C-alpha cells in the first residue's frame, strides 16, 4: 500500500465514523461533532493529495485546507449558538424532541 492510499483510507474511515455519529446520535451537539469530524477528514484528503501530487509549490491543497478550517470554525460557532438558542426554547438538546417549526 502506498503512503497516499494509507492517508486516504484513514480519511475515509474518519469520514464514515463522523457520518455515523451525525446520523445516529440524539444530542444536537454530538451531531455537530460528527459534522466537524467529516470536515476534518476532507482536510486530510486535501493535504495528502497536496503532499503526494505534482506541483506542491503551488500550495493549493494547503490553502484549501486552511480556508476550510476557517469556514469550519465559523460553522461551529453558529451551530453551537443555534443549539443554545433552541435549548432555551424547548429545554432539551434532544433532536427527536425538536419536532415543531413553531417555538
Amino acid at each position, binding site marked *: 500500500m*502506498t*503512503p*497516499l*492510499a494509507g492517508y*486516504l483510507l*484513514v480519511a*475515509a*474511515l*474518519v*469520514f*464514515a*465514523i463522523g*457520518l455515523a*455519529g451525525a*446520523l*445516529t*446520535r*440524539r*444530542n444536537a*451537539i*454530538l451531531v*455537530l*461533532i460528527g459534522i*466537524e*469530524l467529516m470536515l*476534518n477528514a476532507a*482536510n*486530510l484528503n486535501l*493535504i495528502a493529495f*497536496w*503532499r*503526494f*501530487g505534482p506541483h*506542491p*509549490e503551488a*500550495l493549493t491543497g*494547503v*490553502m484549501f*485546507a*486552511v480556508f476550510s*478550517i*476557517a*469556514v*469550519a*470554525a*465559523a*460553522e*461551529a*460557532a*453558529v451551530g*453551537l*449558538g443555534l*443549539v*443554545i*438558542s433552541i*435549548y*432555551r426554547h424547548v429545554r432539551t*438538546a434532544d*433532536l*427527536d424532541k425538536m419536532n415543531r417549526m413553531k417555538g
Partner: protein
Amino acid sequence: MTIVFWILAALTVAGALAAVTLRNTVHCALAVTTAFAGLALLFLQLDAQFAGFAQILVYIGAVAILVVFAILLTRGSETSEHGVFSPTWLAGLCIAAAVFALLGWAVLRSVNAIPQQVMAPAITVKDVGNALMTRYVLPLEIVALLLTAAMVGAVIVAMHEKGDVK
C-alpha cells in the same frame, strides 16, 4: 508507511470512534479533541506545518472549548432516559458503512494510477504567508468577512431576547 503514521492513524480513529459511541457527552468532547490532535499530527507528518498548527489552534484551542461550553450550558451531560442513539440508528450505521465501503473501494482501485511525489516539498510558513498575501488575498478577505459575520450572528442567535426572564 512508517510506524509513526500507524500510531497517529490509530489514535485518530480511536478518538473519533470514542467520540461517537461514548454515553457521557463530556467524555465525547474529550475524545473528539484527541481525534483533532491526531489529525493535526497527521498534517505535520505530511509536511504541512502551517495547516497542522492552524488545526491545533482552531480545533483544540477554540472548537473544543466551544463544544464543552455548549454541553455545559445545555446540560447535555445528562444522558436521556431513551438512550443516546436515535431510533433509526441501524439505518444510519448501514449508510455510514456503505459510504466507507464505497470510498475504500474507490481509493484502493484508483490510487495506483496517480503519480506519487516521494520528495518532501520544501515549503516554509513564509511561503504560505506570501501566497496568502498575494495570490490568495481575495479569499483571505472573504474569510475575514465570513468570520466577522459568523461571530456577530452567533452572538445575536444565542443572545437573550428582551423581556425573556427564563
